[in-house]
C-alpha cells in the first residue's frame, strides 16, 4: 500500500487558474489506464499561496491571463521547487508573445533567476521514461492546425534543481489538448495524454 497519487491544480490570485477543468480527470483516467500506480479518483485544487501546496508534489499550473504572483505565492513556489516539488506550467494560449507567456516567464525569472529557465533536449528522460517520444514534446492539435501563432514549439523549458526538473514550462497548450470531454478519447487515433503520463512518471521517479 502506497499513498495515492493526487493530481493537484494550482490556484493563484491573478489569473484564470480554472481554465482547463476537464484536464485533471483525463490525466487521472490515463494513469489508471496505463499504469498500476495508486491514484486518487479526483483531482484537487490547491492555492499556491498556502501551506497546503506542500502536500502535493505534483502541481499543474495553467491559464490565459497575465500572471502576477503575490509575495507569498512567489515564496511558496521557490520553496516548493527547491524541496523537490514538480510543477508543470502550461500556457493555455499556445502563443509566443502572449500575456500569460510573458508574465509567467517574468515571474519565473524573478523567483529563480534570469537564466533559470532553459530548454530541455529532445533526448531528455521525460520523453522516454514511460512512453517514447523520440522527437521530443508531442505537438498539439492547435499547433498543427496553425491556430494562433501558426508555429510548432519545438521544445519545452525547465527550471532544474540538482539535475531534476522542478518547473516544466510549456507553451504548447496541453491544457487545451487534454481538456476534452469524457467520450472524446474514444474517437482519437492517438491518445494525446500519454505525454502527461510521462510527466507524472518522471516526477515520481526522478
Amino acid at each position: 500500500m502506497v499513498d495515492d497519487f493526487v493530481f493537484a491544480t494550482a490556484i493563484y490570485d491573478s489569473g484564470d487558474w480554472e481554465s482547463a477543468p476537464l484536464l485533471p480527470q483525463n490525466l487521472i483516467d490515463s494513469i489508471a489506464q496505463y499504469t498500476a500506480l495508486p491514484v486518487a479518483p479526483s483531482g484537487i485544487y490547491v492555492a499556491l499561496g498556502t501551506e497546503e501546496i506542500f502536500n502535493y508534489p505534483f502541481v499543474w499550473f495553467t491559464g490565459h491571463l497575465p500572471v502576477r504572483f503575490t509575495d507569498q505565492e512567489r515564496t511558496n513556489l521557490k520553496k516548493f521547487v527547491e524541496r523537490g516539488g514538480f510543477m508543470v506550467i502550461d500556457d493555455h494560449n499556445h502563443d509566443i508573445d502572449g500575456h500569460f507567456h510573458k508574465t509567467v516567464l517574468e515571474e519565473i525569472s524573478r523567483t529563480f533567476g534570469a537564466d533559470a529557465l532553459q530548454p530541455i533536449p529532445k533526448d531528455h528522460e521525460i520523453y522516454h521514461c514511460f512512453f517514447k517520444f523520440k522527437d521530443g514534446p508531442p505537438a498539439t492539435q492547435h499547433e498543427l492546425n496553425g491556430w494562433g501563432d501558426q508555429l510548432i514549439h519545438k521544445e519545452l523549458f525547465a527550471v532544474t534543481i540538482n539535475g531534476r526538473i522542478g518547473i516544466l514550462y510549456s507553451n504548447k497548450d496541453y491544457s487545451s489538448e487534454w481538456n476534452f470531454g469524457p467520450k472524446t478519447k474514444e474517437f482519437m487515433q492517438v491518445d494525446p495524454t500519454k505525454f502527461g503520463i510521462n510527466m507524472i512518471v518522471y516526477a515520481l521517479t526522478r
Partner: protein
Amino acid sequence: MRSPANLHVDFDSEEERQFPVRTAIEWVLRVIGLVALVFLIWQAIHLLNEKISGRAEGETVRESLVRWSTQETPHDIHAVLDSIPSPELRDWLASFPATQTAMSWEGVSLKPSAVSVEPIADPRKAVRVWVAAPNEGQVAVSDSMGLIDSVAITSGGAVLNLHHLDGPVTATIDGTAATAALRDSLKVKPVLILGIASWEGKFIMASLEEHGWKVDARFQVSPKGKGVVVQGPAEPRIDTANYGTVIVLDSSAAKYAGALANFARNQGGGVIVTGYAAPLNAFQGIMPGNATMPSILSEEIAARDSSFARSVLKIAKITGLHSSAIPIEKRKDDVTVAAWVLGKGKVMQVGYLDTWKWRLGGIEQDPNAEYTLWWSRMVSGVTYAPRYDVQVVNEVEPTPMASLVGILGKPETKEAKAAGILNDPRLLPFLFGLVMAAFLLEWASRRLRGRP
C-alpha cells in the same frame, strides 16, 4: 730586680690595663675570625659532598633542560609541567636517567584527555570524533584548516560528527592538546531502492543523491510491458559487489526477499525496510521487529495541518523487537526506527510512513537538509563499506597524558627545597671576607698599640 721574662709579663698586663676595651675587642675579633674560619671550612667540605638538585617550573623547563644538559650535571631534576610537553621535550626529560640524573615530574594542572577519529560510511567522507576528558570545561576541536567546533564536555567526553576533515584532528582542553588522524577509510557502495513509483522513493533517491550517494532504483509503474522505470541496471544484482545498502519501499519488492536475506546475512549488506514494506510476510525473517498496521495518525498532524516534521509523520510502530535488536528512535514509548545485526549484515526497520512529507512540508529551518542528512545517516548506519588504509600520519598524539606517564613514569609531587643558610654557596665569599676582616682588624689593632 725582675728578670726579663717577668718584665714581659708585666708589660702585657700593663697594656691590658691600659687598653682594656681595645683588648676585649681584639679578643672578640679573634673569636669571630676563628668561628667564621671553622664554618667556612665546614661549609666548603659540606658543599663539596652535597648532591645538586635541579627544579624547573612551567615555561622555564626548556631553558633548564638546556642548562642541565650543557652546564650542570644535577644529581636529580624535577619538572613541574603546566601543559603537555611536546614530544621532543618529553623525550628530552626521559633521557636524563641515562646520564645518571634522576628525573621526576608533576603536572597537577594537566587534563587527561584522548581523541579518536573514525570514518563514517558516507560519500562526503564524514568522520566521527570521540573526545574523552574530565567533566568540566570545553573542548575545542580543530583540524589543519582551523577551529571546527567547541563543545562542552559531559559524561566524560563528547562526540562530534564532522562532514569533512583536513589533516589530523586536534582536541584541546585547557591547553592540553590531543591529536589523532584517520588510519583507514571506508569504500562507499551504491544504494539500491526497490518499490512502486511513489513520492517516497523519489524523495529518498533525490536526497541520497544530493548527499553524494550513488543510487540505483527500480520503480514499478505498471505490471505489464516496460512498466518499470530503472536507474542503473534493468535487473539489479543484489550483492555486495554492487551495493552496500538496499532500501525496500513496499510490496513490489517482495520478490527480492530471498536475495535480500542472503545479501544481509551472508554478504554483510545493509537492508532498510520502510513503513509500507515492514508488515509484509516476505520480510518477517529479516526484520528486527514486527510492524503494526494500520498506521497511527499522530494527533499533532491535525493541529499542524500541512506542516510536517519527523515527529508528526504517520508511523507503523515497531513492536516485538528481537532481543538483540536496538531501538534507534522512539516517539514517546513507540519505537519508530530499530535495527539489528543479521548474520554479517544489518537490517533497519523504519516505521515512519511517507517521510517525503517531511522534506516537502517540513517545519524546520531547512527541512531539505534535515531530511537529507537523516536518510543519509540511516544508510550509513547499516551499509556494507569495506575498509582500506589511508596514508598514516605519524605526528599525532591521541592520548597525550597517557603517553607522558608511559614515557616519564608516574608523576610525583615534590615541594621546592627552601635554600638553607648553612648550605647556601653564596655564603662562602661572605665567610671568607669575614675571616679576613676579623683577623686583619685584630692584627692592625695590636700593631697600632705597638704589640707584635
